[in-house]
């Protein structure tokens, strides 16, 4: 008899992917300005480390929240005992108000429809358990966050069917791509239960347009399915066009069927830079979903200690206003630094207005328009250039040559250094390697609007990078 479950012995946790392999390499040789200046710079980690000083100064001024006190009296006992899966009311109220503020107060949220979960990792899995049976499917636009393979599929048995998005239109979701994905699922005898989008997008860093949102709502209405909008990066939108939440588009649709089928996932891991505290949330207009998800949250509640801190932090409107504004400004600046640094290296990226990363176009540096070539390039960048960036194939991108590069998890000096290394690499590549398609050739081809020299890539090769069994043991954290 097999000693462990199928779930324990399969690969669906997804940690054999190259996405996580890069981290392993990084952890063996991590960059440190002083102690290891030649180490690998971590650019595969979508963390927001830019605004801790604002949080710390709030803590300085609010010792009560921190020290398990309310009005000077200890509430340790009450917090230590509080395990009600409905969550601390003050925390939920503060959180929904924060969410509304991020959306310019164009939507209001009802705290009784919010379910707290241990991070959005737990929120996404819980929604799958609520909305789909094992063997059913959700459609996801590519490229998407690699962690979804684990979060949505592993223990739930749900399948992910990709909605192919391409660079030809800036990776926007189209009606035909949606329909193609749906029909593709049907051909595989998979019943589609919904669509899951990340808005703003990881890894693209773009916000969904109003027309995309309307398209999605029309689509789920026609097919009678759900829409999950993971809005974990909603507070990181730093320039126009602004952020439009799916909830905003639903204004006026109350009491319609589609109203009940749209669910939002949120977290404070990116906007506030608090991934360690495990603060996630599901918001749904469907009472049954809220009821079921609330019970399921027992498997991953938010620590009451953390809920209390949050309720104090987020109900301070002076703080939230200041934080959101300042954080966005800093992200904007950092984004600009990265884009300009890439430009100096003659590398372009997708125009973006949100997120903690850029979607970088390294197709000109590929030997051939294949994922093998992408892997080769990636290995060079990790080992030789010593930058851990995330290859597009790990995000299920259909076109080779794209990489996600993070910019908010390091100091300015480190970012500059990373850009210098990259520039040097590109210069060396183009002067040394005559087999490479040169950048000049690429750009002139692009500018002359001739038929692209890059052949159309229609097959989707395996993205899982098979490791030896020893490497399979690699343990990682939850970084997006």
């Amino acid at each position: 008899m097999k000693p462990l479950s199928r779930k324990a012995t399969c690969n669906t946790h997804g940690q054999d992917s190259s996405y996580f392999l890069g981290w392993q390499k990084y952890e063996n040789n991590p960059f440190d300005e002083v102690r290891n200046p030649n180490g690998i710079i971590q650019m595969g980690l979508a963390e927001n480390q830019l605004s801790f000083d604002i949080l710390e100064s709030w803590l300085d001024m609010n010792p009560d929240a921190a020290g398990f006190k309310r009005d000077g009296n200890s509430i340790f006992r009450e917090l230590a005992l509080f395990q009600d899966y409905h969550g601390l009311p003050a925390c939920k109220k503060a959180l929904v108000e924060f969410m509304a503020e991020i959306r310019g107060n164009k939507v209001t949220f009802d705290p009784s429809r919010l379910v707290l979960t241990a991070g959005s990792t737990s929120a996404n899995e819980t929604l799958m358990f609520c909305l789909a049976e094992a063997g059913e499917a959700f459609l996801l636009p590519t490229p998407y966050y690699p962690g979804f393979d684990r979060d949505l599929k592993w223990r739930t048995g749900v399948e992910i069917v990709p909605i192919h998005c391409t660079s030809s239109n800036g990776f926007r979701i189209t009606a035909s791509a949606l329909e193609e994905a749906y029909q593709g699922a049907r051909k595989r005898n998979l019943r589609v239960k919904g669509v899951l989008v990340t808005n703003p997008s990881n890894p693209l860093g773009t916000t969904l347009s109003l027309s995309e949102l309307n398209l999605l709502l029309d689509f789920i209405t026609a097919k009678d399915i759900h829409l999950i909008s993971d809005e974990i990066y909603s507070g990181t939108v730093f320039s126009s066009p602004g952020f439009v939440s799916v909830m905003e588009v639903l204004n006026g649709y109350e009491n319609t069927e589609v109203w009940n089928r749209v669910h939002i996932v949120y977290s404070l891991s990116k906007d506030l830079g608090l991934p360690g505290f495990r603060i996630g949330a599901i918001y749904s207009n469907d009472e049954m979903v809220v009821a079921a998800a609330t019970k399921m949250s027992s498997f991953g509640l938010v620590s009451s200690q953390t809920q209390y801190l949050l309720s104090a932090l987020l109900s301070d409107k002076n703080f939230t206003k200041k934080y959101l504004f300042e954080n966005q400004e800093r992200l904007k600046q950092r984004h600009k630094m990265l884009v300009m640094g890439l430009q100096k290296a003659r590398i372009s990226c997708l125009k973006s207005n949100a997120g903690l990363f850029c979607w970088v176009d390294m197709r000109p540096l590929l030997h051939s328009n294949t994922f093998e070539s992408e892997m080769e390039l990636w290995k060079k960048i990790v080992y030789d250039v010593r930058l851990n960036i995330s290859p597009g194939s790990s995000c299920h991108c259909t076109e080779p040559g794209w990489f996600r590069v993070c910019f908010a998890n390091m100091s300015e000096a480190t970012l500059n250094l990373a850009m210098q290394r990259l520039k040097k690499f590109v210069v060396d590549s183009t002067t040394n390697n005559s087999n490479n398609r040169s950048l000049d050739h690429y750009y002139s081809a692009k500018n002359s609007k001739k038929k692209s020299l890059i052949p159309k890539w229609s097959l989707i090769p395996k993205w899982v990078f098979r490791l030896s069994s020893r490497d399979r043991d690699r343990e990682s954290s939850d970084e997006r």
Partner: protein
Amino acid sequence: MSFVDRNQENLLSKIATGNGHGENSPYFDGWKAFENDPFHASENPRGVIQMGLAENQLCFDLIQDWTKKNPKASICTPDGVDAFRDIAIFQDYHGLPEFRNAVAKFMTKVRGNRVRFDPNRIVMSGGATGAHETIVFCLANPGEAFLVPTPYYPGFDRDLRWRTGVQLLPVVCESSNNFKVTRKALEAAYESAQEANIRVKGLLLTNPSNPLGTVLDRETLRSIVSFINEKNIHLVSDEIYAATVFSEPGFVSISEIIEEEIICNRDLIHIVYSLSKDMGFPGFRVGIIYSYNDAVVHCSRKMSSFGLVSSQTQHLIASMLSDDEFVDRFIAESAKRLGKRHEVFTQGLDQVGIGYLKSNAGLFLWMDLHHLLKEQTFEAEMELWRVIINEVKLNVSPGSSFHCSEPGWFRVCFANMDDSTMDLALTRIVTFALQSKEVRIQRKKCWASNRLRLSFSKRRMDDIMMAQSLLSPHSPIPQSPLVRART
């Protein structure tokens, strides 16, 4: 059913629309009664006293004192804020090393330093609730089964089965031998499963037991280890009440048994732990999986992503549990206070002849009220239970909710209230027992005996006796309807 309705149902999963969460059971009536009319010493003294909640509230003074003296343990205080940034970012599912070290050390101390725990085998989870679900995901496929000795914690029905699709099969234990887990009962349960073509993947124990409050003796543990090895099935030992053992015989952990000279495949042994009961921290969601099986450690660690312990909490716990002097003092004092509370409660029950299972651990007593049942059926048990909630105003938990095979048993929690509330609860129970014609007491003994050692005031007992003898319709304590029904 209209097309639309059928459609609506299909839109959500069976898991979401079904009853697998277990919350539609009649047992929640007790909770509802409490919530509608909760006892409060000054604001609602006639309200329902909560005795259905296994919480440990006896030692918060010690902990609060510690947190005051250790401001650095909180990353938000001026003393601790330097660590804020690093802790706030930390989401590595290995957990903070200092957290794992501190928890391993605590587990060791609780077992009298008789065994060592390896911090690298400590895996976090969303409370023991999360731990149980995760371990089942690792060990069993949908449709497979775990054996569980009855009576057992009702939450297991949800935690082990709901989203995993795994079944729970009872190993029936009986009062005739104090609910001991016998080899015979284990074999019978296993055979039943075989006959029904259900594959058994493991056995789940809770030791010390909830709801019994007893510990498994060495001989029983050895017999269990031999059983699971013979059948090649897993053993999950939920040791969540390990530090609540307050008197002899002491606690013997499965971790000790496997160190003895015994044939045991360690890959089959797993421990679930939590700080919810021993420390009284259910709100902090500190659950632990400790497995001797490397593959299970690795798999459960990956799954812990779905329920990591907040790093803020890890930091606090790491600080607290690495303070050796504090921990030693806490463990000793907590056991002492639990023992005292247990003594007060049982002595009160002794005076009126209410039976209970002799116990030495846990936050509750397994009370025997079968002599108060109209008939020895579960329906009668539910009737009695409703009387206890609605008339006696105590929320206790009926044995049937724990899948007990015999009617008449009730779990009564005693560590989630202060001394005076405990006294009041005891008064209500005693009064109810006295009123019930099935309880034979020797009034002369009560009045005359000087050897009456009452832990609540003798005066109060006198008051009760006075009231009882008056039995006036204006008496503040209503006559038991059970009694009324007979006349």
